[in-house]
């Protein structure tokens, strides 16, 4: 098995329940090294529950999750040491400065960064002059850059990004895409959730569409469009005369607005 085929994340028959409600039903997928894998679905489809289970924030009802070869249930700290996470609404201690937050998270991953190393990290993301600012004083785009840098500070094999470009302007979004592509170029795997079909088409190598807790389609964006090009449900929602990933997504998951 070469580096590109190496499986970084393996989710096998994962089920997650909240009391009687089953949010994730028997979901299986994998993310390879050097791959950006998109996880798409309407609100309440089970994306965040799946991601939370992978992050180790909730205990699944059944199934197996392995990160870089470490079973998340049996070796949670080893598995988490190999993943970097950018949560949907990342909040850091409001009292800490950006450089203090970076040093905190570097320390959690066993890295002891000097002041110069922290400054270099901030320069990499064009925030050299923000070291002493509080996280809340940064703009949305700057916050996302810091969050992504912290998520990757320990060079993890797997990066989990939960709707990372929500609320960003086009310039910031493009810049973040380039950073995500740079992670792929290093040979690491990325699991990305997004509501933006444009983003999924632009950066994802493969996509899983999830609905009602199950994966209903999984393939490359191009293959998904090709497979569903003649699907009447997809054609009926098409708006621009040609079939897009968004048409496939709405055709498969329905027009109804989810809460």
């Amino acid at each position, binding site marked *: 098995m070469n580096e590109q085929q190496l499986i970084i994340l393996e989710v096998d028959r994962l089920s997650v329940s909240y009391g009687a409600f089953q949010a994730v039903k028997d979901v299986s997928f994998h993310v390879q090294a050097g791959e950006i894998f998109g996880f798409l679905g309407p609100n309440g489809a089970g994306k965040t529950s799946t991601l939370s289970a992978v992050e180790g*924030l909730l205990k699944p009802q059944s199934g197996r999750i392995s990160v870089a070869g470490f079973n998340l249930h049996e070796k949670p700290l080893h598995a988490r040491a190999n993943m970097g996470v950018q949560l949907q609404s990342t909040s*850091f201690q409001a009292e800490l400065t950006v450089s203090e937050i970076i040093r905190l998270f570097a320390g959690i991953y066993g890295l002891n960064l000097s002041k110069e190393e922290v400054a270099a990290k901030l320069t990499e993301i064009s925030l050299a002059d923000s070291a002493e600012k509080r996280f809340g004083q940064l703009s949305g785009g700057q916050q996302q850059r810091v969050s992504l840098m912290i998520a990757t500070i320990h060079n993890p094999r797997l990066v989990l990004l939960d709707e990372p470009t929500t609320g960003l302007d086009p310039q910031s979004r493009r810049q973040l895409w380039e950073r995500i592509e740079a992670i792929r170029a290093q040979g690491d795997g990325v699991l990305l959730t997004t509501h933006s079909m444009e983003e999924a088409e632009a950066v994802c190598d493969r996509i899983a569409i999830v609905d009602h807790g199950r994966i209903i389609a999984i393939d490359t964006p191009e293959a998904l469009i090709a497979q569903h090009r003649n699907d009447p449900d997809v054609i009926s929602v098409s708006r621009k005369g040609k079939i897009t990933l968004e048409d496939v997504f709405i055709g498969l998951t329905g027009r109804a607005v989810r809460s």
Partner: protein
Amino acid sequence: MRALLRADFTTLWRNRRSFRLVLLVPIVIVISWKGLVDKLGGPAVLATGITIGLISIGLLGYSNSIARDRDKGIFQRLRVGPVSSWTIMMSRIIVQIAMVLMMTLSVFAAGNLVDKITLTPLGYVYGFFISVIGGALYLSLGQMIVGWIKNPETVNSTTRMVYFFFIMIGMFAEFGALGEQIGHMVKWSPYGVVNKILAASLNPATWSTQTTMALLAAIGYTIVFAVIGIKWFKWDTK
């Protein structure tokens, strides 16, 4: 753990205004009770000040900071790293214990400088030790409140209510203003047992079987509150 402790102590330092408020009430009590030192005894005055400081730290400081950080998702961000949940919580508790020691030191200093209360060296040593035990009781009570209540605003109002309840009932009962029956109940309440073991520890010669019973009661309260608080605690508010 070192990185977490550094961040938590930095957070405490940046919140020094609220820390000063936590220190203020016990110091004001010790100073304003100067006239009662002869009647109640120096250790009893200091014990009351420290008890109130411990209630402030456990209820107003600890529980509100946990409720706020949980609501903001700060714990979830930490928990996705290779750090156990116990380490995250232990770091917070160590910071609170440091606050307990600083508060106790401040009360001793105010008592000595203003009220001219001096203790034996052993009294000071035992005082610090028992203030940590008393602090553990109120931290576990704070933990129980954040275990039961998720909303930070509700945690804030509940802890304030419990804080004033303890102080008012405790102090009135101490002066015998609430009758014998309520006085007896208060004596064995979390307020009463901490006050009793603190007063006895500051004057070790007065330690009795009753004080040992109060110490056991304090440990019992701590265990019960901590078990409930840990069992019911959720790391996020969703």
